[in-house]
């Protein structure tokens, strides 16, 4: 998949809760071929503190309108600048970057587990799976009602279950404590969220012999394999999150018996 450097136009930008915003960008021409799990590197101009590009996973892609959506959590100067971008402004992207989620071939019972802003790549993945005839279920976890993100679009993919740490919406507790995991057997889990959550989900998957892929978010400089900064410790040694990932099968990570939430 050829990587491109292109200017996109901001066609939408709004906060969906206190610290997560949804950025919609339109390509100038035809959108490059994208796969669920891939990410873009966004250049943030205007400050010496935003020297590097910001890696953001692709939340959704519309190949007819040639738009992509990025679900972004405020994390510092770079994301703050992005959150203030007005419609019509240009944004320079390097894309598409990284590998993608493995798409199952036959009928499998699939569960998508997302936590916080980590739900981002799962919408694109879920829609793609559904278009291929799969029927994934979705489990989303948030700290509380205020930190929740809208999940209407996920409901068009399949049944959505919710967990919040304070029980203000859905079941109380972490996603790994949700009754969905006690009751049903899934063959395959795709997970993205905070490290602690992904590690806990990985333990559940290991214990139940479920195939599981997680999408990692490491500090990154280039995003295309040139600098070797964003490595993760794998059974094959240090690998780059940007080109060997961001999606990893948990069997590849040294997460067995790792500390869980």
């Amino acid at each position, binding site marked *: 998949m*050829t*990587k*491109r*450097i292109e200017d996109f136009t901001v066609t939408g930008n709004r906060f969906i809760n206190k610290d997560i915003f949804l950025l919609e960008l339109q390509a100038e021409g035809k959108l490059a071929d994208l796969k669920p799990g891939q990410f873009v590197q966004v*250049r943030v101009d205007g400050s*010496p*503190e935003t*020297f*590097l*590009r910001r890696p953001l996973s692709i939340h959704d892609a519309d190949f007819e309108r040639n738009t992509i959506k990025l679900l972004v959590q405020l994390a510092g100067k770079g994301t703050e600048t992005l959150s203030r971008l007005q419609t019509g402004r240009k944004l320079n992207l*390097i894309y598409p970057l990284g590998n993608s989620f493995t798409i199952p071939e036959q009928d499998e019972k699939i569960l998508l587990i997302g936590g916080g802003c980590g739900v981002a790549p799962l919408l694109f993945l879920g829609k793609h799976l559904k278009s291929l005839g799969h029927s994934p279920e979705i489990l989303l976890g948030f700290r509380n009602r205020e930190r929740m993100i809208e999940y209407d679009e996920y409901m068009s993919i399949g049944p959505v279950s919710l967990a919040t740490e304070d029980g203000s919406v859905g079941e109380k507790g972490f996603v790994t404590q949700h009754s969905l995991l006690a009751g049903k057997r899934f063959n395959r889990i795709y997970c993205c969220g905070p490290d602690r959550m992904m590690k806990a989900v990985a333990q559940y998957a290991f214990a139940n012999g479920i195939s599981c892929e997680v999408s990692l978010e*490491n*500090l*990154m*400089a*280039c995003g*295309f*394999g*040139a*600098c*070797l*900064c*964003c*490595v*993760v*410790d794998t059974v094959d*040694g*240090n690998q780059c999150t940007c080109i060997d990932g961001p999606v990893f099968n948990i069997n590849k990570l040294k997460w067995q018996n790792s500390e869980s939430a």
Partner: protein
Amino acid sequence: MAELGISIGSLSFKNPVITASGTFGNGSEFDDFFDVSRLGGIVLKGTTLEPREGNSYPRMAETASGMLNSVGLQNKGIDYFEKNIYPRVSSYNTNVIVNVNGSYVEDYVALAERINKLDRIPAIELNISCPNVKTGGMAFGTNPETAREVIRKVRAVYSRVLIVKLSPNVTDITQFARISEEEGADSVSLINTLLGMAIDAAAMKPSLSTVTGGLSGPAVKPVALRMVWQAANAVKIPVIGMGGIRTVNDAIEFFLAGATAVQIGTASLIEPGTSVDILEGIGEYLDSKGFGSISEIIGYINRKQERTI
């Protein structure tokens, strides 16, 4: 169009723009962005005899107008290089240079001997300035005696063009440039990264697993330029300048200070096409100033000073 060709020792470069080691992977990472063969040369990722995993994550921290890294020379070793990387980079129509590293003098020598046999590698860059390894690296390049020893021993076994990459973490850069020249190096390249550190105030701990790392990017440019100017005035061998070059003007400053060629480093990580953009810009600058060749501006400010003093 102005003549852009330069020579480093016996090696001709079609233009003076080279990519810096550690910021250009092994070249192929940039194939999607531009034709790598347009460049004067590329310096590949630091290579060692044995595979190295590098340091633990986190090994990069963004800083104002720059970044710290403590990657620590992760690479798959020379056997892998010969089998998998060498055949691929051999197809580039540019000078492919290997950045040579070791923990001990013997490692550098053995690696240089191996690379001496590779016909499509016309030069090595002897890295005695990596700040991110426990043994070797900068330890060699900040001590005059060990620097001299490693350069001398590598020179004895390596017959092609030998470039010595110098560390800025020294009191007097000219001392190390002179030692390189005295021991038969064809060129010196500088600067490698400046030793620095960053602390995550919120987490109250160092940003890098190694605590310290190497600073690069525009933040270091004035320091790099000063050192290139000093080195160029101290030795007769060509100096390859680098450190924070991001724009055409940055590159021109290095030529005016005395650099025969420039290396583009960290900027390529953010704008992958920086090196070719700069290459085009150098030609335009020379044309607009009415110069017929790049050699006319190399060390220009030094000549100008002589004239006016």
